[in-house]
């Protein structure tokens, strides 16, 4: 009796069995690394794909656009690093100052403009990555290479040279930019001299903020979240640096600053624990006070944009 019953039970179990979903222990270990592309089976198993003309292997890689100022001269350049990322590139277009290009707006780093609105000179490159299907264009980058002279140079130097009367410092806005182009500086000078021969404008003060006492001032910096950074308020007259008497934060999110004001000898130390909204940056304005023989007692505002980043995993 037991044997037939056991046989019946086993038969029922076997007949009623169905596939069950099993737990796959390696499901999450399957990383997104793409499988090598299978060779296409066609009449020609290895068709020749002609590379784009004048393409070359990249050995110097774009890092950032750099704008440096030395006295009246503002230089627009591109910093690179000597290393290879495994990509290729070719020259698309070399453009001069103010010359429009068909590739304007296509570069991921954009194309800057001079103070008068003209686009800077430089070269457009297209980057390629070599895949099994040939060279695939992936991005366009613009390497800027230009310079301009501050147009107030002549307007501020000429009165000093041509006038021997004692000067009385006025207090124009230090951030105001001259409007006359360089070609017209002489006429501007004469107008200033005639209109107010004894009340000459002070030399413009060019404020800036740098990450070290001797490095060039920067307009934008990237910092890691929570990492303390030291910002040095700086001020320049012509090509000379002048001493900063004091500074204070007047606008923007200064982060977790140790102090929001200080003397010229004490830099601004701070850190940011929060990331700015996507695509945005913290803009901080420092009011810099100078008081020297060639500047008089004046204040100027320096602004810097801070992009806070955080180490994160990529998926």
């Amino acid at each position, binding site marked *: 009796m037991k044997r037939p019953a056991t046989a019946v039970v086993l038969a029922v179990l076997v007949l009623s069995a169905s596939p069950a979903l099993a737990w796959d222990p390696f499901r999450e270990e399957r990383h997104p690394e793409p499988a090598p592309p299978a060779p296409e089976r066609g009449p020609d198993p290895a068709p020749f794909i002609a590379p784009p003309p004048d393409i070359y292997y990249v050995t110097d890689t774009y890092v950032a656009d750099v704008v440096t100022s030395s006295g009246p001269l503002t230089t627009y350049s591109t910093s690179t690093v000597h290393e290879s990322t495994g990509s290729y590139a070719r020259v698309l277009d070399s453009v001069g100052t103010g010359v429009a290009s068909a590739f304007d707006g296509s570069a991921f780093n954009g194309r800057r403009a001079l103070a008068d609105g003209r686009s800077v000179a430089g070269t457009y490159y297209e980057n390629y990555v070599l895949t099994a299907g040939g060279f695939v264009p992936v991005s366009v980058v613009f390497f800027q290479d230009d310079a301009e002279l501050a147009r107030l140079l002549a307007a501020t130097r000429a009165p000093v040279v041509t006038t021997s009367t004692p000067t009385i410092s006025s207090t124009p806005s230090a951030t105001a930019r001259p409007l006359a182009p360089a070609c017209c500086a002489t006429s501007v000078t004469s107008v200033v001299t005639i209109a107010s021969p004894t009340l000459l404008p002070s030399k413009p003060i060019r404020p800036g903020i740098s990450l070290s006492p001797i490095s060039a001032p920067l307009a934008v910096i990237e910092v890691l979240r929570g990492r303390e950074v030291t910002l040095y308020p700086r001020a320049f007259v012509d090509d000379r640096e002048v001493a900063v008497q004091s500074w204070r934060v007047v606008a923007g999110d200064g982060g977790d600053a140790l102090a929001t004001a200080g003397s010229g000898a004490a830099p601004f130390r701070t850190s940011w624990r929060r990331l700015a909204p996507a695509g945005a940056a913290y803009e901080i304005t420092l009011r810099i006070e100078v008081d020297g023989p060639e500047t008089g007692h004046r204040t100027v505002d320096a602004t810097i944009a801070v992009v806070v980043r955080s180490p*994160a995993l990529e998926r």
Partner: protein
Amino acid sequence: MVLTLVLAPLLLVALAGALQLGALRVAAARVRAAADLATLVAVNDQDDAELARSGALRLSADAADVAREYFARELELSSSLLDGAVDEIAAAADVAAYPSAPAYDVRTGTRYDHPVVRIAADVPVRTPVFGALVLRPVTTIHVLAVSSPR
């Protein structure tokens, strides 16, 4: 009685296999965490001179070495699960640092828009129960970790 004798070995095998799968899952999670942490530490290692010069974040020159070192340190905590010396496993890992962006991963073809540290490693894990069940006594876990400042 007969039914018990027939089914007991099957149940024991199933139980042992389930326990081994669970242990393997734990080991895989720890290995992945080790790689993730190593890349995060390496990304945190920035070139301060370049930052002062250009204002841009750029990985320090030894970022890949830092990632490999910390990968070994993190694996050390799971060394009893591994079938091999952690130093050898870390040394065999494919660690790449792309200090500036954009860059293209020569291994995966991925485009990176930020400086990146990437670890791709094959980590052998002991699975003795599988070996007793005429399966692989060592299971290799493939791990890929990529980190960047974003």
